[in-house]
């Protein structure tokens, strides 16, 4: 091998190290490349298998799969519309709560907290991400729900004129458990860490020269944040929120444990009222009781969710990548 490479070097008069490789190096490159390719292929396979298995259901339902709300594959009447609406309602409620909280936590860690508090604070917020979603579900069901329905009742009684808050039989506590709102609150807690992580990273890259300049011109801390940190971190705020949205759309077990399934899209928009829906929880709840065709229909629902989360996350990655200078994603 060595002889061979020497000859090569003489022929070309110039050693090009990338071309002189031992057999170990060659196989190392092949193995590393192919694991990269395997990861790439795995993602394609997920989409492909979902498509293949959902084909028989999609052929029966046609385009009505996306417009129909009921879920009765045995009768040939099934569609993902109600689940889709429910999924987005839960995700939007979660974002409305989680994004302001995440912005505040990220600002506090990067701008306000003393240096020795930063690491422990970051760790504690990351612990929120480490807690399994099952435990969030249990907690939301047993601890949060009895307390949150009091707030729901207050909102439903006093702000019932807002369409989303409208609740039939608003004065009774019994009309509020297992609602979209409670599921949204729990999901909000689960996505705060990822939103915070992205925003913290972008905020901490705000140019120190401009921050010092703002301070030197007599700006207050809030002035610095408003005129330098937030404009600079706008991409991070949007990208972090969208990454959170992607997670919120796919959240399964916590939502399944909290909501009571409901398939009427009009009633779903009354977010405080009992009943909610989501694609992931539809799959989790119906899987064990489905026959082959029912599973095919669930695969079609899964494919819909797959495409939506993929699009949302791709957009988020692009926005985050543009908002910072060539650094890697470290979430």
């Amino acid at each position, binding site marked *: 091998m060595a002889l061979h490479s020497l000859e090569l070097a003489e022929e070309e008069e110039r050693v090009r*190290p990338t071309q002189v490789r031992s057999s*170990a*190096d060659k196989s*190392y490159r092949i193995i*590393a490349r192919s694991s*990269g*390719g395997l*990861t*790439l292929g*795995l*993602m394609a*396979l*997920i989409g492909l*298998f*979902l498509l293949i298995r959902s084909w028989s259901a999609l052929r029966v339902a046609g385009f009505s799969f996306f417009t129909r709300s009921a879920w009765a594959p045995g009768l040939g009447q099934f569609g993902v519309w109600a689940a889709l609406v429910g999924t987005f309602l839960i995700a939007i409620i979660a974002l409305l709560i989680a994004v*302001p909280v995440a912005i*505040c*936590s990220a*600002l*506090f860690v990067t*701008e*306000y907290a003393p*240096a020795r508090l930063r690491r422990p604070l970051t760790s504690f*917020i*990351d*612990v*929120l991400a*480490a*807690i*399994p979603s099952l*435990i*969030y579900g*249990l*907690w939301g069901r047993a*601890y949060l729900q009895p307390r949150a329905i*009091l707030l729901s009742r207050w909102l439903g009684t006093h702000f019932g004129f807002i369409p989303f808050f409208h609740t039939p039989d608003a004065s009774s506590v019994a009309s509020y458990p297992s609602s979209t709102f409670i599921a949204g609150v729990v999901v909000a807690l689960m996505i705060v860490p990822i939103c915070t992580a992205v925003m913290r990273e972008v905020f901490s890259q705000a140019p120190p020269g401009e921050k010092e300049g703002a301070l030197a011109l007599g700006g*207050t801390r*809030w*002035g610095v*944040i408003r005129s330098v940190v937030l404009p600079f971190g706008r991409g991070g705020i949007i990208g972090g929120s969208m990454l959170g949205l992607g*997670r919120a759309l*796919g*959240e*399964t077990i916590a939502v399944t*444990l909290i909501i009571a399934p409901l398939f009427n899209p009009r009633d779903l928009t009354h977010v405080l009222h009992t009943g909610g829906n989501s694609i*992931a929880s539809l*799959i*989790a709840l119906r*899987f*064990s009781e489905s026959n082959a065709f029912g599973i095919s229909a669930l*695969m079609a629902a*899964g494919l819909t*969710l*797959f495409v939506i989360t*993929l699009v949302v996350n*791709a957009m988020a*990655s692009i926005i985050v990548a543009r908002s910072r200078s060539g650094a*890697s*994603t470290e*979430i």
Partner: protein
Amino acid sequence: MTTTAEHREAGDATIDLDEDRIDFSDDLPGDRIRARGLKTSEVVDLLGAAAGSFCVTWLVYERLTPLSGGLGFGVVWYLLFLATVWFIARERLGALHARDRIVGVVVATVALGVLVPLAVIVGYTIARGYHALRPQFFTQDQSKAAPLSPATVGGGSGAIVGSLEMVGIATLISIPLGIATAVFLSEIRGRLARPVRMIVDAMSAVPSILAGLFIYAAFILALHQQQTGLAAALSLAVLMLPTVTRTAEVVLRLVPGGLREASLSLGGGEWATVRRIILPTARAGLLTAVILGIARVVGETAPLIVTSLGNTHFNGNPFKGKQDALPLMIYRLVRLPQTAEIQRAWTGALVLLGIVLVLFVIARIVGGRGPGHIGRLKRARLARKGLS
């Protein structure tokens, strides 16, 4: 302001990078700007505002109006507190600083408020779970636990063994693949690297139930397999892979380029460089990647609903028959009506939370060291060889 800064060498202004504060104390007679932290006067203001607003709220709630309720009391107190802070700051420093103060207080309370649910979740799980936590939870399965027998009968041995085996198999699959992909992304690079990195990012966002559906379609249906622990392990491996790859890639990038170049210039091949220099240097970080990957999937429930189904009897064989897992057992039991079953679920939840938190703390401790960190044991070993 008479602080240590004035005792430093007099003369030009210094910018203290360590504490992020700009120090012009020698030039300016007034308050110096502090970018972080609180001054004593601010702390006094805040405490005074909190006490004053509490008293007013109490007066309004308990004496003057027929209002009631803990949440309402808290909200009114907080709003009054903000108003008091604003008035104090406006009287002292003017409207501009008052607004600054309000924003600071809101940001700090919201950020620290996030830690409240964390404490409540952990505390509540402990409070609900510890009653029935006996050694038998680790030695018995659920087969003897009738719905009405007390919660201290029956345990999660089948579930714990199942979880260990599933996570173990998933680790065996995803660690080599994940680290090899990370090596590819950070060492070999090339045209393929960008799409691979993007896909790994996208994969980490795939909803966990879809990983289960994928294995159901690609393994159970396509290869005519049964629902077993192995199928569950495969779906967990799909979920673990992106976590391991991304963490490992970040760690590998931290390995100083000088080490790489030194190895190559001494005649080490690429494989020798990776095996003898890069991977050992990043060992602590790679361990963190593995632990974070395990912590990510050990509590995962949704894919198991599809791939493993659960089992009340002990099944130690992941390749044959339905197998239970800790999250699956909790999910099954908590939806039953009997209090004893729900109690068993909470005991399981406590064990699961304990496992996840321990893994997380270990990952933090290991990951806190930089690449190439030489620990106490290794230092002793090097000293014996006369290298240190």
